[in-house]
Structure formats: structure tokens, C-alpha cells
């Protein structure tokens, strides 16, 4: 599985879904086009010869605009990255999927970036996606019950974003 053959199978089954890959890394990863994520996940779980039947975790990374002093050496453009760790209990292999999203949808601040929900593929993704939405502000389209899971329901902002500002006051309780 850890070879180009697997990637070719994926490319044949779902053309145009792979945006990049690195399979010789310790954790081999494949970058997926955001619009094809759900299709790829369903293929990985149900069609591929290695059935990835477990979603271990979903991570969101906020690649914020670098500091002006460090901007010259920065190797990235501002974006939000989602990382999915998959595991096959039968074959005992894992794979990492990455999806790159804009920080804001259409670069309009306040508009959350959108990606398809994989709750239909793995039921356990439900709370993972709620947590990512709560803390990092990614909107999962097709999620059955996308609301905050850790912060109070009337919380404003998404705390793990780099440009998050702490509230000075929360319902009469002084913030700092």
C-alpha cells in the first residue's frame, strides 16, 4: 500500500482528487482536493483494498499570515489545513489525508471555510467535526448537528484561530 501503486488506484478511481502526496514520510500523507474529500473517504473505507475503517482524529491547523519580520522566510500562504488520520484495523496500516482550505470563505473575514462532512462515512466524525468547528471555525456541510461542543453555545469566535481575541467580559464576569 505504501507505494505509488495505491496512489494510482486512487487516481484511477477518482480522477482529479489528489492534489499532492508524500508516501515516503514516516506518516505517509495524501493531499486531497476539498471538493472531493467525502468521495475519497468513502472510497478509502469501502472500495480500496485496504479498508480504512477507523477515523482516528481530525486536526485543524491555522496557518496564519506570518509576522512581518519572518515573512521573507515563510514558506506558506495563509490557509487552514485539515488533517485526517485513518487506520485500518484489518491491515494495521494508517494513512494521513490533508485538505487545504482558505482561512475565510472567499477571503471575507467572518465567513467560515466550508468542506464536506465525513459523518456519513465514519459516524465517529460527528463530535470531531463539532470540535473543529468550535475551536478552529471550519464549517462542515452536511453535518447532522453542527454546533459548539466545548465552548458555551453563545460563545463568539473560534479560540484556536491565531487572530482570535479573548473576550473582555462574558455575561457580567470580567475577563481579565
Amino acid at each position, binding site marked *: 500500500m505504501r507505494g505509488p501503486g495505491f496512489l494510482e488506484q486512487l487516481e484511477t478511481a477518482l480522477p482529479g482528487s489528489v492534489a499532492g502526496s508524500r508516501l515516503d514520510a514516516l506518516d505517509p500523507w495524501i493531499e486531497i482536493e476539498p471538493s472531493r474529500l467525502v468521495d475519497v473517504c468513502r472510497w478509502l473505507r469501502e472500495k480500496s483494498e485496504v479498508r480504512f475503517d477507523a477515523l482516528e482524529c481530525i486536526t485543524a491547523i491555522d496557518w496564519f499570515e506570518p509576522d512581518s519580520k519572518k515573512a521573507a522566510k515563510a514558506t506558506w500562504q495563509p490557509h487552514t489545513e485539515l488533517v485526517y488520520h485513518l487506520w485500518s484495523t484489518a491491515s494495521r496500516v494508517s494513512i494521513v489525508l490533508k485538505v487545504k482550505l482558505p482561512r475565510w470563505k472567499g477571503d471575507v473575514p467572518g465567513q467560515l471555510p466550508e468542506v464536506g462532512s465525513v459523518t456519513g462515512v465514519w459516524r465517529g466524525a460527528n463530535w470531531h467535526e463539532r470540535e473543529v468547528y468550535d475551536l478552529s471555525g471550519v464549517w462542515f456541510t452536511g453535518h447532522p448537528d453542527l454546533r459548539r461542543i466545548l465552548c*458555551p453555545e453563545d460563545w463568539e469566535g473560534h479560540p484556536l484561530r491565531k487572530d482570535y481575541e479573548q473576550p473582555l467580559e462574558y455575561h457580567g464576569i470580567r475577563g481579565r
Partner: protein
Amino acid sequence: MTQPQVNPTPWIEGRFEENMVLTTVEQAINWARQSSIWPMTFGLACCAIEMMAAGASRYDLDRFGAGAFRATPRQADLMIVAGTVTYKMASRVRRLYNLMPDPKYVIAMGACTTGGGPYFKWGYHVVKGVDLVVPVDVYVPGCPPRPESLLEGLMRIQDKIQGQRIAKRTGSVGKVDDELPVPHHSGYVVSPVADGSLVFDHQKVQS
């Protein structure tokens, strides 16, 4: 040669010397109160482990009459806030405090409850000291405090009880305005639902 008994001591003399204590009602009540402080089970984070250790046999909180941890605020005199208080929890802390009968006392145990502790700077979700939500009597610093520290805090509560006076209140009698906010359990002080629409998920009625 025997001395004649001119004025023998009455039989009742000295019989109660060792058994009778003269005191005031005030002192008696304070003594009873300070010897039976029932704390509320209120562990929020790692400080609760130390609180449990203080209640267990090695440190034995029961020596002070404070070993009866109650699971309901209605039966508790002392709230030991042991652990990190988040904004989400703050309204619950306040509500439980309001449910306790008077006289009631609060120990802020640990760095998080005294002033935010390690979450002071970057903890977006942590109340910067539980005294912003409930009135605190004794602060016990430490991260987490040793059980000895908690026992010391309990003894300071006992000192505070000992100093209480029974006196008629002069001036206006009645409820004092709260200087601290009373958050609704949904997070709102006043219900925002004006037009009848539901705001939060838990307000939904299961059909």
C-alpha cells in the same frame, strides 16, 4: 487527736466542678458551627485529588468535623472550589452557591480559583479567579495545594466562624443587592427569548 468537725462541707459541693462549663450562647453556637462544617463535594480539576486526600485517612478532615462531604448544596455549609472554573461552569458555581443555606463559606482552593493560575494569560475560557463569581472567604494558594494547606484554610474558616457575633441588625433589613452577576444556566442573565424562538439546543422539546 482528731479535730472536731465544726462546719462540714455540703455533700453537693464540688460535685459538678469538672462537668459544668459556663459560657455564652454566642460562643456555644459558634463552637457547634465550627466543629461541624460540612463541605460540598465540588471537585472541578486536579485540586479535587488533593481535596480527596485531605478527606482520606492520612490527613483526616474529619478531625475538624468537616469530613461529611455532601452531594447537595442544601446540606452543605462550605463550598471548597477545587479546580479550574470555566466560564461555562461559572454560572453553575454561582447557582450552587445560591442554593446553599446561610451561613455559608467558600474556600478558593488552588491557583486557578484564586486568580486564573496558569490560564491567566492565554486561557480564553477560564474565569480569572472564582471571586469574580462568588464571594470567597479563604484563599488557599498552590498548584495544587498540599492537603496540609487545605487543612490550614479550613482552620482559618473556623477562626472566622469563631469571631461571629449574634446581634440584632440595625438599619435596613432585607436582601442585599448582589454585586456579583447571577448568570442564567444558559449563559444569559436575562432570557433573550422575547419572540418565543428558541436559542439554545437544550431548550428544544423532545417530541
